[in-house]
C-alpha cells in the first residue's frame, strides 16, 4: 500500500482565505494510500520544508504531494527538500490550489471541494510515479548572443571574459544599436559614443568573441546545451578579409542622397556606406536597393552601369557577386538582446492593433520629429554637427515643444504600457536644447514625470530649474500654421486651454520590440506577449530566463528599459550562462520516453512524429544472431519529453516518464471516485 504524505499550504492567507485548508488536509487523510496529511501556514518556508523531511523519515513516506502554489513556482524547491530527506525527487509533486483555485474562486465551499479534487488527482498520480534519475548530457560551452546593442555587447563581453566562446550576431552592418545614435545619456550627460565605442572595440578584438555583423538567425535546432543554430550572413559585397576600412569607396560613390537610417532619416549617406564613423566592424556595405550597378543589373542590363567603388578600391575588396552565406554554429545557450524600435504616429502601422495620431497630422507636418531624430540633431557626428536646427529649413528653433506619452499609455492607439525612459530623455533633451540655444524656450506637455532611478528625479528637477516649462496635460491637436506649428493643449494644474506656436515639436514615442521579433521568438520557440516583448520565465524570480531552457533574455526586447538596467540585465544573463557552463555536464529533467521492447512492433509511427529525431532503430536478435524484429529506441539525450509519440503509438509501447497513461487515468478516476 502506498505511503503518501499530503501537505496543504495556507500560503499566509492566499489559499486559506477561500479554501478551508484544514478540511482539505482532513479529507485527504482519509484517502487510501495517504499515510500522513497535514496543513501548514508556509510550506515553502524553512520550517515548512523541514515538516516534509521529518514526515518522510518518521512515516517512511514513498511519495509527497504539496498542495500549494503553481509547480512553476516551487516544484524545484519541494523536490530538493524531498531529495535531501532521501526520497527520489520525482516522487514529489505539487497540486496547484492557489493560482488555479483559491485566487480565482470566491465561493468557499466550491473552492474547497475543487481543492480536494485537485489534491486527490495528484495523489493518485503520485501512486504511479516511478523514481527517476536526472539525465546528464554534455554541454557545448559556447554561447550565442542575438543583437549587438549595449545589452548584447555587455552579455558577450561578460561571457567571453568568463572563459567561454561567444558568437555575436548583429542584423545591422555595425554593432552599437540605438545607443550609438544617442548624443549624451542620462542622468550624467556623458557622451554616449565615449562610453560605448571602447566596448565595441573590445568586442571586435576579443579573442573569444566571433562577431557576425550584417547577419540574422535563420533557424535553430536542439535544446539546452546542444543547440545548432544556422545564421544567414547577408552579402556585404565587400570582402571583410581584404578591406582595411580606408573609406575611399564611400567618398567616390555617386549616389549621395540616400536618407541615412543611422541619422533617422535626417542625414544622407552613399550607396556603399559605413553607418557611422566609429562603426565596428568598420567595413562598408553596399545597399543593393539604391546602388546604380545593382539597380542596372536588376533591370537586366548586360553592361554594368557603375563600378566606381570597385575601381577606387586599391585592395580589390569589392565583390559584386558575393552571395549570402549560411553558417552553422553549435552553442549551449542563447541570449536574446534584440532591443527596441520606436512607435511612429503615421497612418500606416506595422501591427494591426496599432493606430496612428491623425490629430497630430499622421507625421506629415514638417519639423515634428521623434526622440532619436532629436538625438541625431544634438549629436556632434549628426547631420547638423550638433546644432539644433529644424529639418525643414535649417533655422534654429526658438520654441521647441516636447510631447510625452506618444503611443505609450494610450489604449486607444493600442499601447497601454509606459515606456519608462521618455520622461528622462525628454528632460535631457530640454537641457541639451537650452544649453545650445540660450534664448530658446523648451516646453514639455507631460502627464506624470516618472523618474525613479538613482539621481533621476534630481535630473528632471534640474531640467525644470534650468528653464524648461512643464505643462501638465496632453495635446489635443497640432497643425501647420504658416511658419510655425500650432499646438493646442491644456494645463490641468492651472485649468487653462493653452495654444502655443512651436518652431519644432519632438514626440516622445513609445518603445516597441523590433519588427520581426515574433518570427525570431518562434524560431527559438520562446513565448512573447501581445506586444511582441519576450516573456521572461518569472517576472520577479527568473527575470533573465525564458520558459525555454537555455534561452535567456536581456535589454529592451523583454520590456521598455534604459541603458543601466539593460547592462545589469545583460550581466545577469551572462552569469546565468556561465553557471550553466560551469559544470561539464548538464543534468536534465528525466521526463523522457521509454520503449517497451516486448510490445513494440516496429511500426515507427513514433519516429515519424518525433520532431527532435530522438527515435532510433534497434535490431533484436536471438542468441544465434538471427534478426527477430527491429524496434524503436529512444535516445535519452535528445528526447525533449513532449509525449507526442506516446499519443500516436498504436500499441501503447512507448511511455513518457512522469506522464504515463496509468498516471493520467488514475488522476481522472480520482475526480469521480
Amino acid at each position, binding site marked *: 500500500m502506498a505511503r503518501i504524505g499530503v501537505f496543504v499550504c495556507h500560503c499566509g492567507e492566499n489559499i486559506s482565505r477561500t479554501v478551508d485548508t484544514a478540511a482539505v488536509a482532513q479529507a485527504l487523510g482519509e484517502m487510501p494510500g495517504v499515510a500522513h496529511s497535514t496543513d501548514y501556514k508556509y510550506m515553502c518556508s524553512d520550517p515548512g520544508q523541514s515538516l516534509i523531511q521529518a514526515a518522510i523519515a518518521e512515516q517512511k513516506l514513498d511519495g509527497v504531494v504539496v498542495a500549494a502554489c503553481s509547480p512553476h513556482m516551487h516544484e524545484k524547491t519541494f523536490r530538493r527538500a524531498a531529495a535531501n530527506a532521501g526520497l527520489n525527487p520525482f516522487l514529489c509533486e505539487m497540486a496547484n490550489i492557489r*493560482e488555479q483555485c483559491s485566487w480565482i474562486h470566491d465561493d468557499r465551499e*466550491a473552492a474547497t471541494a475543487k481543492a480536494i479534487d485537485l489534491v486527490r488527482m495528484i495523489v493518485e498520480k503520485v501512486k504511479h510515479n516511478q523514481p527517476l534519475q536526472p539525465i546528464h548530457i554534455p554541454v557545448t560551452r559556447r554561447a550565442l548572443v542575438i543583437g549587438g546593442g549595449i545589452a548584447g555587447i555587455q552579455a558577450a563581453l561578460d561571457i567571453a571574459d568568463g572563459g567561454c566562446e561567444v558568437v555575436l550576431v548583429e542584423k545591422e552592418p555595425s554593432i552599437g544599436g540605438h545607443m550609438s545614435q544617442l548624443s549624451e545619456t542620462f542622468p550624467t550627460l556623458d557622451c554616449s559614443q565615449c562610453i560605448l565605442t571602447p566596448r565595441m572595440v573590445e568586442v571586435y578584438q576579443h579573442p573569444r568573441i566571433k562577431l557576425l555583423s550584417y547577419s540574422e538567425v535563420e533557424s535553430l535546432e536542439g535544446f539546452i546545451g546542444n543547440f545548432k543554430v544556422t545564421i544567414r550572413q547577408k552579402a556585404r559585397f565587400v570582402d571583410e578579409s581584404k578591406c582595411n576600412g580606408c573609406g575611399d569607396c564611400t567618398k567616390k560613390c555617386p549616389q549621395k542622397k540616400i536618407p541615412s537610417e543611422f541619422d533617422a532619416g535626417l542625414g544622407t549617406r552613399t550607396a556603399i556606406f559605413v553607418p557611422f564613423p566609429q562603426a565596428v566592424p568598420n567595413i562598408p556595405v553596399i545597399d543593393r536597393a539604391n546602388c546604380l550597378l545593382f539597380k542596372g543589373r536588376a533591370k537586366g542590363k548586360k553592361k554594368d552601369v557603375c563600378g566606381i567603388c570597385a575601381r577606387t578600391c586599391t585592395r580589390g575588396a569589392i565583390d559584386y557577386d558575393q552571395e549570402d552565406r549560411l553558417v552553422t554554429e553549435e552553442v549551449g545557450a542563447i541570449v536574446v538582446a534584440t532591443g527596441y524600435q520606436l512607435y511612429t504616429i503615421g497612418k500606416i502601422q506595422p501591427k494591426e492593433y496599432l493606430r496612428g495620431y491623425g490629430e497630430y497630422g499622421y507625421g506629415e507636418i514638417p519639423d515634428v520629429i521623434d526622440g532619436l531624430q532629436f538625438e541625431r540633431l544634438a549629436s556632434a557626428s549628426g547631420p547638423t554637427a550638433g546644432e539644433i536646427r529644424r529639418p525643414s529649413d535649417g533655422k534654429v528653433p526658438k520654441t521647441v515643444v516636447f510631447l510625452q506619452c506618444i503611443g505609450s499609455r494610450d489604449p486607444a492607439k493600442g499601447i497601454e504600457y509606459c515606456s519608462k525612459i521618455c520622461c528622462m530623455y525628454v528632460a535631457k533633451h530640454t537641457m541639451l536644447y537650452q544649453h545650445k540655444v540660450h534664448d530658446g524656450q523648451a516646453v514639455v506637455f507631460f502627464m506624470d514625470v516618472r523618474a525613479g532611478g538613482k539621481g533621476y528625479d534630481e535630473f528632471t528637477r534640474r531640467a525644470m530649474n534650468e528653464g524648461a516649462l512643464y505643462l501638465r496635460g496632453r495635446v489635443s491637436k497640432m497643425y501647420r500654421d504658416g511658419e510655425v506649428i500650432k499646438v493646442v493643449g491644456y494645463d490641468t494644474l492651472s485649468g487653462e486651454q493653452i495654444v502655443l506656436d512651436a518652431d519644432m515639436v519632438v514626440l516622445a514615442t513609445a518603445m516597441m520590440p523590433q519588427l520581426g521579433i515574433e518570427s525570431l521568438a518562434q524560431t527559438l520557440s520562446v*513565448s512573447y506577449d501581445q506586444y511582441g516583448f519576450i*516573456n521572461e520565465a518569472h517576472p520577479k524570480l527568473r527575470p533573465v530566463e525564458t520558459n525555454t531552457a537555455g534561452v535567456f533574455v536581456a535589454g529592451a526586447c523583454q520590456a521598455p528599459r534604459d541603458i543601466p538596467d539593460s547592462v545589469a540585465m545583460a550581466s545577469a544573463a551572462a552569469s546565468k550562462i556561465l553557471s550553466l557552463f560551469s559544470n561539464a555536464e548538464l543534468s536534465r529533467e528525466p521526463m523522457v520516453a521509454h520503449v517497451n521492447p516486448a510490445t513494440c512492433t516496429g511500426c515507427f509511427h513514433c519516429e515519424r512524429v518525433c520532431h527532435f529525431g530522438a527515435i532510433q532503430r534497434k535490431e533484436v536478435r536471438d542468441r544465434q544472431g538471427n534478426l527477430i524484429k527491429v524496434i524503436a529506441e529512444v535516445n535519452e539525450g535528445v528526447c525533449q519529453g513532449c509525449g507526442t509519440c506516446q*499519443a500516436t503509438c498504436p500499441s501503447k509501447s512507448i511511455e513518457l516518464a512522469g*506522464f504515463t497513461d496509468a498516471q493520467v*487515468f488514475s488522476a481522472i478516476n480520482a475526480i469521480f471516485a
Partner: protein
Amino acid sequence: MSTATTAQQKPQAEPLADPGLKPGVAEGFEPKIIAFVCNWCTYTGADLAGTSRIQMAPNVRMIRLPCTGRIDPLFVIKAFERGADGVIVSGCHPADCHYAVGNYHARRRFAIFRDLLEFLGIEPDRLTFSWVSASEGKKWSEVVNDATQRVKKLGPFAAYQSLVDK
C-alpha cells in the same frame, strides 16, 4: 404645452425562460468538466489568470501535460466514461508550441476525433478545443466560463452513464 404623459412604467424586459435548459434539469446542476492542458502555454495562462485574480466558474479540474501532442483521445473517452459532463483540450497557438509541432499533431488528431464523438452521439458542445497562450489569462477564464455555461445548458451527461451502468 405638452399633454401630461400617462403614468407608465419604463418597459422592463421580463426575464426570458432559458430556452436551452432541458426541461426537468435541476436548476442547481453544476457540471464537472475536465481540462487537459499543455504545461507551457495554457497552464501558464491559467496561472496568469490566478495572479491577476480573474474570477471564473469552479467546475473545471485541470490535468497538466507537457504538450497537447501528448493528449491521447483515450483520455477524453475515459473522462466521459468516468462521469465528466464536459472536456476541454487547450494548448499553445499554432507556431507557438514549445516543442514546435506538438499542437499541429493535436489539431489534426482532434479534428477527426471530434467527428467520431459526434457520431457516437456525444453533443459537440460538451467538447471545447482552444488555443490559450501564456499571456492570455483573460481568455482562459472566458474558455472556462463559456464551456461551463454550454455544458450546464446541456445538463448532466446521463446518456453515456446509463450505457455504462447497464
